[in-house]
């Protein structure tokens, strides 16, 4: 615990800001039912009510409390993005490291599959898959996870390649270690830093991607609250000088910025560059 505090205090202000924001989002999503004044899908009043004491941020197109939906939206959107990023990472970094460690035809096959997947624009690919299989949650998760895993694969393979040619990996091979051990003990610890940094960035992209899909009606389905579809549903309000539909968009933007601040700091730390002051 003390250690964490120490690292926190040594971070630059931008990273501190980022970490505070992320922590804030995390608390909101975890404790959503306790924080939100109303339920996620409760119809409470007329549509498009203005900000008032009863509805702090007004109501949406169906008369649901905007603030409560923002809070639940955090939980749904962030939870989903986190799940997808985690799956993409496990899949991408594992295959990437295997490709780098084994080389030869394994590497060729994996890399070409990834090339094919990457050659299709991701939004088109997602629209295609989701319109064929429907928009059920497992399909949504699998589609975005596979698309993102290709990017993670490329990074993991490239960084693992650099490590795989080191003498200490050769030492392990000469000792007779199995591939699994070489990947887990020799390669993985040396590529964790760039992978972690990538995790932060990937998370942002996944997040934006889900929001984009939701905005197009293919993401998280109603009545579940999520920030992308909230922007779409209430977009007409902007014409009436009401900024309420921009709030979910702002929430997305703030998290993205916060995440990038933290990632920048982590990249800087792992690069070993000295601050010259």
């Amino acid at each position: 615990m003390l250690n964490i505090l120490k690292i926190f205090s040594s971070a630059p202000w931008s990273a501190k800001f980022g970490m505070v924001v992320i922590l804030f989002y995390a608390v909101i999503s975890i404790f959503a039912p306790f924080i939100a004044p109303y339920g996620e899908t409760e119809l409470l009043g007329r549509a498009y009510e203005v900000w008032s004491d009863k509805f702090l941020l007004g109501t949406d197109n169906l008369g649901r409390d905007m603030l409560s939906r923002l809070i639940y939206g955090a939980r749904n959107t962030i939870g989903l993005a986190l799940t997808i990023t985690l799956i993409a990472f496990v899949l991408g970094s594992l295959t990437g490291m295997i490709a780098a460690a084994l080389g030869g035809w394994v590497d060729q096959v994996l890399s070409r599959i990834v090339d094919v997947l990457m050659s299709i624009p991701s939004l088109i690919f997602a629209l295609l898959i989701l319109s064929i299989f429907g928009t059920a949650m497992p399909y949504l998760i699998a589609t975005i996870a596979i698309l993102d895993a290709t990017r993670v694969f490329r990074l993991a393979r490239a960084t693992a390649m650099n490590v795989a040619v080191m003498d200490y990996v050769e030492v392990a091979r000469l000792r007779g270690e199995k591939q699994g051990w070489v990947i887990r003990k020799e390669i993985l610890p040396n590529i964790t830093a760039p992978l972690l940094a990538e995790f932060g960035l990937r998370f942002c992209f996944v997040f934006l991607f889900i929001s984009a899909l939701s905005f197009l009606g293919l993401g998280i389905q109603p009545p579940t609250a999520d920030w992308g579809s909230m922007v779409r549903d209430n977009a007409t309000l902007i014409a009436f000088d009401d900024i309420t539909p921009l709030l979910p968009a702002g929430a997305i933007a703030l998290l993205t910025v916060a995440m990038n601040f933290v990632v920048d700091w982590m990249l800087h730390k792992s690069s070993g560059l000295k601050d010259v002051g």
Partner: protein
Amino acid sequence: MLVDTNKNSNKEVSSTLLEVKGLRIEGLSEKGWQEIVCGVDLTLKRGEILGLIGESGAGKSTIGLAAMGYARDGCRITAGEIIFDGIELHSAPENEKRKLRGTRISYVAQSAAAAFNPAHRLLEQFAEGPVDHGVMSRKEAKEKGRALYRSLDLPDPDNIGERWSHQVSGGQLQRMMVAMAMSCGPDLIVFDEPTTALDVTTQIEVLKTIKEIVVDRNVAAIYITHDLAVVAQLADQLMVLRYGNLVEVNSTGQILEAPKQEYTRDLLDARTRHEKTTAQISNPEILLSIDNITAGYGKGPDILQEVSISVERGRTVAVVGESGSGKSTLARVITGLLPPRSGDIRFQTDILPAALAQRTKQQLQKTQMIYQLPDVALNPRQRVRDVIGRPLSFYLGLRGKEKERRIIELLEQIELSEKYIDRLPDELSGGEKQRVCIARALAAEPELIVCDEVTSALDTIVAKAILDLLQKLQHELQLTYLFISHDLDTVASIADQVVVLYAGRVAEQGSKSAVFQPPFHPYTRLLLSSVPEMKQGWLEQTLTTREAKAGIAREVKITKRGCPFAERCPEAISEICSNERPPLQTPASGHFFACQHTPEILLK
């Protein structure tokens, strides 16, 4: 007293060119800013060469760069004056200093391969400085480049500049960098270990170039190195440094003949050859034998051709040769990383499977390897405990307390204390890292250890300590070493048997004394005569030998026909040597070399 042949008669040793007073430099570490150069003074007259000597961490390079008014990122000059020809560089504005660098002061780095941009042609890079500084037009600069290449005897001087950096040999590249430093006709050149990464024969080639440029053109130089014998060939003055402090400064002759400080004596001593005497072994047993190995990479040529070597238990067999001779390929074949195209490897009486994947755990355990660069041979994320502990649990199944006890025992064996057990490689010095690598090899309880250039990346004093440790361990544990090296001094101090490899073939093989005293094969002679000796004037002497005239500044070429050494050989018989395989000559039992000439003819 030796005659100082370095002094050029027409050299005007008059006005002071560079004066550094009370130079203090700090470097940023985890503990904050720490002083790495603690008040050093130096003066350099026009046309004079100053050698900076010391181990790594002595502050040599930092001082060298400071002479140009420059401090690397993470370093800062905190005090002192650097006066170059009347200009105070420490306080001079950056653009003022930039005007001097490249025109009046230039810098030659250790690794030419890393210093040249691989995306531009060599002559373009030569012209960059003079054109940028507005000294010459591009055309004039290129003309000057070609003229310099010609005067330095580079092959095909008119066209070599049109090549890319990967298309010329390491020695040539280094010489071209020296030429580049001369592009604007500077008054001072800073050489930062320009020959450290090179073979002995290539080293001579580069030293010759440096000497021609610096001495004959009356340029002042600061020459940074950890090798006293090398700098003794060039420098007028030597400055011995340690931990950023001045230890001793004097004329080269004085330092070599009558060093005043203990540390200087240590440096001299570490560079002096200590011959190992081979003890008799009562009933010799062949531990490893390599029969008729031919090997190569992919679809490429045979890097090793019909190589046969046998290694007796408890002995050290050294494999020597220049880069490109196939030494490291041999190590890869023995360890199973590169299955040979033909031939057998026998360990005791069993034939080892060619490929690593087919060898059993017991077979792998018996052969361990130590690498040239301890930095990349240790996983930066593993603590010493894990590095040494893994072979213990992997091969011997040790766990818990037992394993811990053994790790500590091994640490003691490599002369490191128990407190090193939880350190990361970053927290170890170069020598300590290499010791940990040795301990890792020992942990497997091997019979054979393949040592691939294990001391070439280390400072002289540290290297000597590592060699001593290896000898001690051999004595205690009856270990057998296959010792790969290009450094004949090292080989002389550790080997019992010597195998001289050239272009993938065994040129000469036998006991150390038989091979070296006297050397028969012309290649062995060339290698021996190329090892710098700790006396002034050695370079000139060597360059006049027949071996050097024929063999220096030539590349190793692999051929299937004739003797690969023919075109570098002063004894070559035209037509015959380049077409016919040389027969084996056996001057004594157990000693043979491949040459058309008989031992009697070669000794004449």
